[in-house]
């Protein structure tokens, strides 16, 4: 008799819902930042890192 272990991974995604008050706060912040590049230095850093690198795909 051969015993084979088979592991099945079950992922349960629990999304913590947002309250009306949170929704309101986020909407206010969204109004301030929408379309604004929040991390220009990071984007420049990424460009620099990848400047002489060939992407794998």
């Amino acid at each position, binding site marked *: *008799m051969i*015993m084979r272990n088979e592991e099945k991974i079950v992922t349960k995604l629990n999304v*913590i819902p947002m309250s009306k008050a949170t929704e309101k706060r986020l*909407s206010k912040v969204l109004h301030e*930042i929408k379309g604004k590049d*929040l991390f220009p230095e990071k984007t420049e850093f990424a460009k620099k890192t990848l400047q002489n690198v060939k*992407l794998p795909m």
Partner: protein
Amino acid sequence: MKNILSLHKKALINIENYDTTFSIKNSIVQYLFESSGQKKLIKGVQYSKFETKSGETVYNLGFGDYDSETKGITDRKSSNNGDARKVFNTVLNTIPKFLKEFPDFPIFIQGSDSHNSFEEECRSSCSKNCNMICKNKDRRIRTYIHFLDKKIKVFSKDYTFYGFDEEKKTFVEYEPKNKYTAILVYKKK
């Protein structure tokens, strides 16, 4: 004829994460959520589009806390709000959401503390007195790798990951527990 007895083990991965808002303008994709740890903090994840020198389009992932004074998001501080697991699950869960909308472009993830000049800047104000190696350098990408490694089996079904090998200056196939200074993610076709 051999008898095969299959033992089915069920591993349950419970991913708890915050609900997010979604917005897109000027090729900038933003997700906002509220972290409810010790305090209520607004956090933002941004995917910004750029082109490499060879003309390839990449989206760079940025993540940080909302600062009501500057009315922006900063990744300079660590808020230590007591809910890091939920926060990083939320950040990582924006990857499938983003790639569902933009399946043709890879995501580039790199910590702002992986910059060459970071160590010098850190030593000038840090109280940790690190000897040879600055413990804060590459801390952010190590955190991403830590949380990603836990879910790599689940994520690998639909996405391909590459790690950036700093010494070889090239991307290599992602292997959990290896050291990388950046990560590249593609949606599988």
